[in-house]
């Protein structure tokens, strides 16, 4: 890393805004924080006196908990607001909510919202640091970063690896962040799945679109099936989950096409038996729980870095 490098982001809106050096630096910081979580007393005073608000407009257990644990392990005070966008329709706008929160002077607002660009809207109206915990089908940068961290940790590198992302690319902010992030770090990203799940122009984000699952998975170092979002099936995108499982699910047979030391990742929660068989999800080459553990470390790093810049 160049000596003159300085991390200068006040907000984390997406991996698209982060440079190669930024990502390296975040992963490096996260690696150094990871050890804290393995101590018997899992707490450091780094963010004592800092206030962090989790503003979640979509239900989420793991991401919210992961951010909360990350903040508490660094001694920050955390507050959770579970809002629903339907209550926002009744009265307060998102901008008003944010301005009210800002008036209480928090250091970071972590936001999850069903509308792409909602975190960006906040940065236009308030000066508090914003971390995007997932917006619509745009990005989920902390998930992308924890996936990069996990691959780097397990494979020792990211550059040159073949990463196959399978499934509902169009509706997946995780896929978007990962395609951008892995491409930026020098991996080759292939995507496959039902063509109805492939958004127009996804190749421009850095992904190679494969019509054939076999082509996408052959010789892959990392295979990442995405969650089929059952609640998002209003458009007629696939005929049935049964058909999806048999043609696009990651089964033992399919996984054999990947490299012998390939690993399987999943952003969770898993629809077992649909996008991934239980045998593979729980198998020796699954790193799904490592992802969860690294999530805490990456989020500690992000909180530490943005607070350092605000």
């Amino acid at each position, binding site marked *: 890393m160049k000596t003159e490098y300085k991390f200068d982001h006040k907000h984390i809106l997406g991996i*698209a805004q982060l440079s190669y050096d930024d990502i390296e630096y975040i992963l490096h910081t996260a690696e150094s924080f990871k050890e804290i979580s393995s101590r018997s007393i899992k707490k450091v005073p780094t963010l004592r006196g800092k206030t962090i608000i989790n503003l979640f407009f979509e239900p989420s257990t793991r991401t919210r908990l992961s951010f909360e644990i990350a903040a508490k392990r660094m001694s920050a005070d955390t507050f959770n607001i579970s809002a629903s966008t339907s209550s926002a329709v009744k009265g307060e*706008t*998102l*901008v008003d909510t944010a301005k009210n929160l800002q008036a209480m002077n928090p250091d970071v607002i972590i936001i999850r*919202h069903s*509308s*792409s*660009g*909602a975190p*960006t*809207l906040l940065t236009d*109206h308030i000066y508090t640091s914003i971390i995007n915990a997932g*917006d*619509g*089908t*745009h*990005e989920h940068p902390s998930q992308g970063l924890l996936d990069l961290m996990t691959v780097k940790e397990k494979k020792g590198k990211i550059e040159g690896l073949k990463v196959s992302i399978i499934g509902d690319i*169009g509706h997946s*902010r995780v896929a*978007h962040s990962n395609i951008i992030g892995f491409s930026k770090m020098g991996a080759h990203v292939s995507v496959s799945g039902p063509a109805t799940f492939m*958004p*127009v*122009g*996804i*190749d*421009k*984000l850095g992904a190679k679109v494969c019509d054939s699952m076999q082509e996408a998975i052959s010789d892959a170092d990392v295979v990442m099936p995405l969650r089929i979002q059952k609640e998002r099936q209003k*458009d007629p995108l696939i005929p049935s989950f049964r058909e999806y499982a048999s043609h696009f699910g990651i089964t033992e047979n399919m996984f054999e096409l990947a490299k012998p030391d390939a690993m399987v990742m999943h952003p969770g929660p898993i629809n077992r038996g649909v996008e991934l068989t239980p045998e593979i999800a729980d198998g020796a080459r699954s790193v799904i729980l490592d992802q969860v553990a690294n999530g805490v470390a990456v989020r500690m790093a992000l909180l530490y870095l943005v607070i350092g810049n605000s």
Partner: protein
Amino acid sequence: MAATQGILLKNGRIIDPANGIDMAADVLIENGKIVSVTEPGKLSGNANAQQIDVAGCWVVPGLIDMHVHLREPGEEYKETILSGTRAASAGGFTAVACMPNTDPVNDCSVVTRMILEKSHGAYARVYPVGTISKSGKGEALAEIGDMKSAGIVAISDDGRPVSDSQLMRRALEYSGNFDLPVICHSEDMYLSRTGVMNEGALSTKLGLKGIPSAAEEIMVYRDIKLAEYTGRPVHIAHASTRESINLIRSAKEKGSPVTAETAPHYFSLTEKAVEGYNTNAKMNPPLRTEEDVASIKEALADGTLDVIATDHAPHSTLEKEVEFDVAANGIIGLETAVPLTLNLVREGVFDEAKMVELLSVNPAKILKVDGGSISEGSIADITVINPEKEFQYTIDKVVSKSKNSPFLGRQLKGMAVLTIVGGDITFSSL
């Protein structure tokens, strides 16, 4: 607007393509009519006439915006007939055609009359457009004949397009009895569905649902085919894609009864304006690509497109300072149309006479309303444009009640400096 003693516009450049005129001349206006157009300095005439020196300016037939949303009745917090026509006048327009998607919609003579009553004392002529269907629901024909008697100049289901092709066919046939043009907002609502911007790599990058250009083109094709089949003219509103242009061009080559318009934003901006989730770049049809912009410019130059209309669509911060996917579609446009169109004249896309055709002559022809020329004896609707005057378009300068413009902050060149409607000055910055 008090009756004047007459107005003498001196030393301007008269650009009047309907009469094949482009020359320096003085124009004398009396009793709401153009009395004479004569060589500079030769007019003595009425000694009481207010003499206005417009040297360096263009004197053109009053600009007519055939696609405007005035929001009254129903959404007066966004715009009213008075505030909207004031914005029109400040932008150089002497007349506007107002779309019927108000609340209630203009689907019957009562609403048409109410709009026309409110237009007395407004800053521009107001030509109401009625709906095609009852309540604008796309199910049954509205009382088109009654609305015509009350004063509508066209019918359109703008904003809520007619999906039922049979109904569209019947509307074309029936409107023939009343000699009313049908203005089509051509959009396949099943294909555009919940899209909020042009579909492509950028919509994917931003995570915003896309509207494929085919959603427009499929219905442009349908509307052209129905015009050909019924022999009744259609006017395609806000054409925005290259393929729409190609369809319109080939229909015109065959002699089909088709006219079409575009809006200044479709030749001034691309989808890139959406980046950063700018809700003032959200409209329907959505902003498209460089390629589409190039096609639109070409089509304006070669006559494939007949009209530049603004699709002035005022929205307050309530509808615009929100998440992109829930923000309302549309931008205000009356006050920026002249400088944005002048950009194309300066780029050499078309000449001054063509600009006047696009903004005055052709809309008058299509709507069959007065204006579009500076002939002796015709109504004195005149716009004076200073093509060199520069200004920064800032929020405090916006005359419209709503401020939703993607051009805010821009340095613009060329503007209307004097607007005259029926011999009355409705706007002057001279």
